């Protein structure tokens, strides 16, 4: 079963089964009234880049997005199911769902099928209680964090993120922080690359951005 990092598989035959992987760098940062989600755009099958302009930031509901890493098939299937679930739930509720709820629905799938799945997901969004970021790594645990990084490229930027993150950053500072983190990870991780895609979620709506060129 392929994991996000390519280390173990390099010695054996990587992706002999042709499985498509989001060897990735993803992150989400919470600021006072919203969330910035960022991701690279590379999808690989072994060493071949199947899609160099992937959008790994997936809309679950109007106010909740998720970043996908791990197996492309698994994360797409899970995201579709969670989206359908939450759409029905929000119709029954009569209001946009809570980010907490979305995270729990993701978790219930990721934990129940943890042996068959390879999915690392970061959920971010804004609801009536404010902005939230939840990280759901491979085993199916959920943890709320002020900011979260994930994917194979994230290992290269743990130190940078810990050193440069400050609580109480403004929206613009968070966007710049996200761009620089993902750019640094992309320049060191072979499985990450292409463009930097961003989604800035606020109570007013969602703004999507694309940054081309790694050196920014």
């Amino acid at each position: 079963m392929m994991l996000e990092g390519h280390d173990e598989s390099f010695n054996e035959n990587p992706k002999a089964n042709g499985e498509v992987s989001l060897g990735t760098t993803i992150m989400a940062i919470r600021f006072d009234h919203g969330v910035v989600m960022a991701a690279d755009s590379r999808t690989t099958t072994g060493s071949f880049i199947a899609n160099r302009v992937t959008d790994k930031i997936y809309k679950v509901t109007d106010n909740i997005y998720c970043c996908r890493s791990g197996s492309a098939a698994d994360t797409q299937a899970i995201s579709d199911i969670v989206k359908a679930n939450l759409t029905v739930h929000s119709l029954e509720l009569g209001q946009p769902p809570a980010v907490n709820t979305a995270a729990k629905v993701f978790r219930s799938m990721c934990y129940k099928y943890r042996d068959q799945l390879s999915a690392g997901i970061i959920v971010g969004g804004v609801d009536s209680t404010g902005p939230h970021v939840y990280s759901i790594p491979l085993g199916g645990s959920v943890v709320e964090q002020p900011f979260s990084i994930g994917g194979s490229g994230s290992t290269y930027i743990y130190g940078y993120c810990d050193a440069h993150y400050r609580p109480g950053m403004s929206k613009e500072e968070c966007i710049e922080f996200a761009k620089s983190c993902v750019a640094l990870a992309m320049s060191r991780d072979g499985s990450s690359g292409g463009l930097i895609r961003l989604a800035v979620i606020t109570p007013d709506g969602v703004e999507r951005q694309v940054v081309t060129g790694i050196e920014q």
Partner: protein
Amino acid sequence: MPKQDTPQQVLAGLTSKNQFTKTGTTICGVICKNGVVLGADTRSTAGDIVMDKNCEKIHYIAPNIYCCGAGTAADTEYTTELISSQCKLHRYRTDRDTRVATAKTMLTRHLFQYQGHVSAALVLGGVDVLGPHLHTIYPHGSTDTLPFVAMGSGSLAAISMLEQGDADHQGWRPNMEVEEAVDLVKRAIHAGIFNDMGSGSNVDICVITKDEAGKIAADYRRNTDIANPRKYRRDVPYKLPATRLVEVNGDMDM
């Protein structure tokens, strides 16, 4: 001292493990102005042997949707036929033309359910009320939506023609005319046919477009380019030498 394999043993192990994961095929698709152009080679292989020199890799899904298939021929054939009939029933139920997203979801659900054991890598293209669409679908059930795609063992050769082109021709650009796109797809499949051992023979093309009136038409051009014609061919059929009757012994009942 750990046991070391000899080079011969390692090689034998590698070949028996069937490292050839990409399949003997070149298929591709591009989005053009008002439509989609799909292309495929026509070689079908079993290991090193060519089983069918002129097979059809572009499968019918709906009048406005076609699907190229790479991978195990039985899997691509069966999966596309299954989804084609599901789409027909869906058309009867909804009284509407099939949308590409519908076919995509049906294919994805089927492939994901089988966790990659149904070895079908597909290029799904079509035009519906919302416009032209082009998707790749991988055996494990993941999809990508792109303006130009290539799959199969010859995909590396084909994608280089689509990305970059060559000294005399450009690669893909937005809003190409239909015939320009057909030419581009032909060159991409050619690249696969001549540079990949798993691909060969002829080029099949399928053009799906929507005109100004909104009418969607699919033009399936079988063997649009016979890239590898049989060069040495007798003009006169071989005549068996006549058996000369020498003598008849007894009755002629056998």
